């Protein structure tokens, strides 16, 4: 294998048993660091009766209490120590150089502090992704996102610069201006959310008369923020719309940039040199080590020191793929990327159901637009799923046929029935950031 395909061949091709030894060593280090420097973590661990000397094996790691967003909300905010970060902070506030926050879609935003050291580490983590996706110093990448308080593609910007990629910041430009800038500069790469990649492409084609696949030069796109990058039908739509290769990438404000597809586009690699990933069974909470079984991600950022992230319940649903990738990396992969959010995966009529399964079906129909909305509700005691979709222009007379085929496919894929509502093209919301397409009203 050509070593130049790796950002860091030492870490990326490390034998699995060595990689696990590295993770254990690093876990002990970050645990000790947090215990010694963060009142929050020390309190948490003392209450659980665990201290640094107790961590000797992976089994010991599983005794370490998990953290989650709600715990951050309790220690952060006005009137709390070390405002706004709370007493999780492990460094003096004078060492904090960067503020970000979560979007707050599930409650009060979580505030995230980074020292310059952590910022460099985060950029290094993202560099693995871009290099694996063939970004090089011959590329010109336009970043069409609002450079603001959310972490979004900030690390992509700095990692691309580190690789030598020429970065065009598409900050406050509107969608049309971004497309024109892309065309003017012959940019050959971009990174955005799945929803925005689709939306931009439609705006170019339908409002501007620009066919992204023919009139623009975009050859590779990194997507993040939504599951669609690993949903085959959604990926196919993006690739056809733009005439480009689409690579999935994932991460979060609290954890960092932990997963990415390599150029083989064969599932998300997880960066096991910088992070520890544990998958918990959805019902029993037991740790899943075997491939092919879905569970929720518990993640540790092994080297993030200002505001450590140790055994964070990410509420992402994933499953291992331990088959070797053709790229030669020893990092394991995830089948289907992030399959869904634990908050969204729910039982409907007794069947375990995820919105991403519906997306895969809807986006497999060329007669339907990119957009859809799902509303779960109750009719009497029975669960009901309403699915709103749009017919593409030119297919308005095909509703009966599409309805029949769509219901059949949905039933096959999810074992459930749906109430279909066909909307006029353009009626459903479009998104620049993460799309919001699912509501569960059953408990309102």
């Amino acid at each position, binding site marked *: 294998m050509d070593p130049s395909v790796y950002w860091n061949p030492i870490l990326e091709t490390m034998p699995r048993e060595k990689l696990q030894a590295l993770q254990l060593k690093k876990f002990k280090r970050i645990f000790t660091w947090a215990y010694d420097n963060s009142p929050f973590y020390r309190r948490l661990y003392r209450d659980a009766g665990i201290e640094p000397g107790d961590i000797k094996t992976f089994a010991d790691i599983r005794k370490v209490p998990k953290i989650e967003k709600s715990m951050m909300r309790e220690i952060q905010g006005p009137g709390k120590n070390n405002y706004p970060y709370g007493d999780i902070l492990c460094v003096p506030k004078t060492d904090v150089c960067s503020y970000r926050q979560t979007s707050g879609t599930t409650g009060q935003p979580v505030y995230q502090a980074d020292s310059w050291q952590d910022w*460099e580490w985060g950029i290094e983590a993202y560099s693995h992704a871009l290099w694996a996706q063939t970004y090089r110093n011959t590329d010109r990448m336009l970043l069409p996102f609002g450079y603001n308080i959310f972490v979004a593609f900030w690390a992509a910007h700095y990692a691309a610069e580190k690789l030598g990629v020429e970065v065009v910041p598409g900050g406050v430009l509107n969608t049309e201006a971004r497309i024109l800038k892309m065309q003017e500069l012959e940019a050959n790469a971009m990174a955005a959310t799945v929803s925005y990649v689709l939306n931009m492409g439609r705006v170019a084609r339908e409002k501007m008369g620009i066919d992204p696949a023919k009139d623009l030069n975009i050859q590779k796109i990194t997507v993040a923020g939504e599951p669609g990058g690993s949903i085959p039908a959604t990926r196919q739509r993006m690739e056809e719309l733009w005439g480009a290769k689409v690579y999935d990438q994932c991460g979060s404000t609290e954890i960092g940039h932990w997963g990415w597809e390599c150029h083989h586009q064969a599932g998300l690699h997880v960066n096991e040199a910088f992070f520890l990933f544990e998958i918990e069974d959805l019902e029993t909470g037991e740790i899943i080590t075997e491939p092919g079984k879905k569970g929720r991600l518990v993640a540790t950022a092994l080297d993030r020191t200002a505001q450590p992230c140790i055994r964070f319940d990410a509420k992402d649903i994933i499953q291992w793929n331990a088959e070797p990738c053709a790229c030669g990396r020893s990092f394991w992969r995830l089948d289907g990327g992030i399959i869904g959010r634990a908050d969204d995966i729910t039982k409907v009529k007794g069947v375990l159901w995820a919105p991403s399964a519906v997306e895969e079906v809807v986006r497999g129909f060329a007669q339907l637009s990119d957009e859809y909305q799902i509303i779960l509700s109750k009719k009497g005691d029975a669960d009901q799923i309403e699915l709103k979709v749009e017919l593409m222009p030119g297919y308005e007379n095909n509703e009966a046929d599409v309805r029949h085929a769509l219901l059949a496919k949905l039933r096959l894929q999810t074992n459930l029935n749906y109430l279909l509502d066909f909307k006029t093209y353009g009626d459903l919301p479009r998104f620049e950031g993460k799309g919001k397409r699912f509501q569960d009203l059953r408990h309102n």
Partner: protein
Amino acid sequence: MKPEFDLNAMVQKIQTLKQNAAELKAVAGGIVAVDRNINRISASIRVMELDICDAADILLAGD
């Protein structure tokens, strides 16, 4: 094709860089421009420790 690198030598060079950075800071008499640039350099050196030295500790153990 296997990459050609000398892990031991890389670790030594990284430690030398780290030491040089600390020594430069020590003799700079608090000049802010030096101090803050050393902070940035030190963060990059730390990333190389994570990239190389941590791995070397594991890979070279028992050699």
